[in-house]
């Protein structure tokens, strides 16, 4: 028995040490999903906490019950409970564990249904500030961000004014990718020939890491970008300076961009070709007869 106790002591010490180390480490790093910086990611985080706590209602009894039965009914326990080899059924008990999880799941289902509507990525965000439109194109292997109203475009980063809804339209001119900016919102796929949408906003200034969550070829690991949230005035200044100082995003330039390559630095463009985003989508609709030539595959 003392041997068991000694072992238990060593094990608990080790577990404790590991937990402390992990705690110290984790308090020094950035954990985007748990540190939301925008209303959408924030609601997702609160939902996470709610669902986890309701799951614990079933999980904790399971753990306690497991520890109890194994400890109490092990063969070499001198104080073992009564042995009843033919006890195999109890209508009341079985009814209990069909019912309790069923009730719990019913409650969680209602939460799920409502949350699916409330956090529908296509749902416009309410705000006193007018939404800014950004069109996103995943390319092999870089992200193109087009600001149709500001008449600028960027590669692998974009700026957004704080506390302002951003309305993304997303597509792909490459394999399927998934646009994920965890501190601001969950992800959505980008698919060639199709358009998805996403609303998000940042409620504090900062630089946020985003990436593609869906494998898209050898340059996939370079499919990450930064979202830089700045004040409304500096956003305007930035957009103007990009428009003034950057080269044009002509169709020729775009055709170069869509060639497979990894660009790991930030690039700016001004005056993207008119309707570039729609042209990219449409090129997959009518792959032979369009201005871009045979691009669709």
């Amino acid at each position, binding site marked *: 028995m003392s041997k068991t106790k000694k072992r238990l002591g060593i094990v608990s010490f080790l577990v404790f040490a590991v937990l402390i180390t992990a705690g110290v480490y984790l308090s020094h790093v950035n954990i985007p*999903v748990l540190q939301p910086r925008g209303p959408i990611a924030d609601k997702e985080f609160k939902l996470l906490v709610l669902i986890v706590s309701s799951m614990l209602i079933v999980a904790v009894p399971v753990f306690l019950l497991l520890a109890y039965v194994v400890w109490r*009914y092990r063969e070499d326990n001198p104080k073992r409970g009564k042995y009843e*080899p033919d006890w195999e059924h109890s209508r009341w008990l079985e009814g209990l564990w*069909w019912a309790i999880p069923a009730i719990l799941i019913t409650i969680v289902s209602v939460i799920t249904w409502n949350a*699916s509507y409330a956090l529908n990525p296509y749902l416009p965000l309410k705000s006193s500030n007018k939404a800014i439109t950004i069109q996103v194109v995943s390319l092999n292997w870089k992200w193109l961000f087009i600001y149709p109203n500001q008449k600028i475009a960027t590669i692998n980063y974009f700026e957004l004014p704080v506390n302002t809804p951003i309305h993304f339209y997303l597509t792909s001119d490459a394999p399927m990718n998934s646009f994920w900016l965890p501190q601001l919102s969950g992800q959505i*796929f980008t698919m060639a020939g199709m358009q998805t949408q996403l609303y998000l906003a940042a409620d504090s200034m900062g630089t946020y890491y985003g990436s593609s*969550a*869906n494998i898209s070829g050898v340059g996939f690991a370079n499919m990450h970008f930064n979202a830089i949230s700045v004040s409304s005035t500096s956003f305007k200044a930035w957009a103007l300076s990009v428009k003034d100082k950057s080269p044009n995003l002509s169709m020729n330039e775009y055709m170069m961009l869509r060639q497979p390559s990894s660009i790991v630095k930030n690039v700016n463009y001004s005056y993207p070709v008119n309707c570039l985003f729609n042209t990219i989508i449409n090129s997959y609709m009518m792959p032979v007869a369009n201005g871009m030539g045979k691009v*669709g595959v």
Partner: protein
Amino acid sequence: MLLSLFANLLGKLSLKQLPHDPVTAVGASMIVAVPILLAILLTVTKRWKWLYREWLTTQDHKKIGIMYIIVAVAMGLRGLADVVLVRAQQALASGNSHGILNASHFQQIVSAHGTIMIFFVAMGLMFGIINLIVPLQIGSRDVAFPFLNATGFWLFFAGMALINVSLVIGDFAATGWLAYPPLSELAYSPTVGVDYWIWSLEIAGIGSLMAGVNFIATILKKRVKGMKLMLMPLFSWSVLGSMFLVVFAFPILTVTLTLLAFDRTFGMHFFTSSYGGNMMMYVNLIWAWGHPEVYILVLPAFGAYSEVVSAFARKRLFGYTSMVWAIWAIVVLSFIVWLHHFFTMGASPDVNAFFGIMTMIIAVPTGVKLFNWLFTLYKGKLNLKTPLYWFIAFVVVFTIGGMAGVLMAVPPLDFQFHNSLFLVAHFHMMIVSGVLFGYFAAITYWFPKFFGFKLNERLGRYAFWNWLIGFLLAFVPLYILGFMGATRRLDHYSASLGWQPLFIVAAIGVVFIIAGVVFQFLQLVVSIWQRNNEGMSHKDPWDGRTLEWSLPTPVPIYNFARLPIVSTRDAFMAIKKAKLIDNRPYEPIEIPKNTPLSILIALGAFLFGFAFVWHIWWLVVVGFITTVLSIIVRSMDEHPTRLLSAKQVEKMEQSYKEAAV
């Protein structure tokens, strides 16, 4: 002229396709060396005839079961080697370091790991154990369709061979294990990698379908007289559920892969980005197979846990009827949840919410099973041996993984977890604890039935602790990495993200898992060594409750000389308690003849698949004709069985009794 003709005969195949980089070369030489070493060993020991007669042509479900497990263990080692490379790469490739592999190679390894572990390890262990146990548990002398069963195994083997050939000649898919188009289309994956993936799974998948048909018929039609469905052991029940899923799900896989092959080989446009192709259709179809596949693997393992818990608690299984209904609830629900694999595709909230809620409902029957197991232990007399250790670990890990699963069933939360390492941690927790640990427990439990001695307990426990610690070290950090925004299949990441320490911990976890595997092999060797020691060799070491334990070891080819009399659950326990002595006269028994046709059908399929990969059209024809001819020859055979007379049976029974302990 002659040279170009020769080149045409080889399709796209050329010497350039042999491996060039050192890592692949090592892997490839292993793949080549193993069969050569085996061949030399067989020649030296003059065992070719033995191999042919006893194994290659056998129709005996017990031998087929053992062959499934041997293939699965070998493939498990390959899958583990893949993991070592993946974990090493991700632990190293941060910031300026690019690790040991280039991106394409890394992605091929990740894809091969997933494909091999699901199709050739988990499925192989599952079909192996089903083959060994189900006919014995239901008191049957054979499976319903022994030839179909053997052919299913050899097709599984052919698929396995094809995926391993890809390591030596050409390359493998670098697309992830489910090869989503358009990445898996010719435009973005022009090499033969995806074709290897397609044809390997196509062939193995048809084999699984055959096995599924066979075991549904076996369980429904071959039960011994008196064993009503509701008296059937729970392992057989869960196999029945699982095999129904196989029969409904695998045709979807076969068709989906065929359409993708048509896209790649004949320039069609089922799933391409343009010309009317639709990648979303592929994603729907592959998961309409893929989600039931999870339950195909998990249900028989649940069944094995039911047997193990009852045997080691020395008690009847609690809540039998609930358990059966829970299985069927899971079977039905598993077909209406597939969309939860792509909530992020932009479906409307009601569609997402429906599939999310259906997914959560599966937690109810699963929870019922958990509580019933725990109450089987309650008021028991627990024989705390390794199978029960695996079960306890399963309950803890599966509950944590299951909670993560419910989280991801909420669509807005899935937006934050989809394709992140959180997801990777979740499904490994479900599949490793729910499937692999279950089959480890099953193997430890049923091993003495087939080999006549127990596995060494102490080494088994060492293996268990290494596995469990390694597993937690490898996957708990992945949950955290998911929260930190790390996505799956990354061959490189920037140092500023702070991910590297966690990846290093995960890599250390793999070291422990390897130690666990080493202990498992040691356990086998030491157990064989000590097989005659006192207390090791046993006919019925766990005081078994079901019919398989009533048989001599090794089990005779016809299983039951006298068909058992069954009127209750735990039929063998009832026989033992009643001290029944069966003196009925022996009767003649029909058993299937050995035939090489199963292996020929699979050989044809292998050639067909290999030739399709490389566009060697004459070989496609040869492979096709081999398969079709073998099927025709078999269909013409009017005497596929032979009869053992009652006297022969009596003689064999005598010899078994003398050999038995």
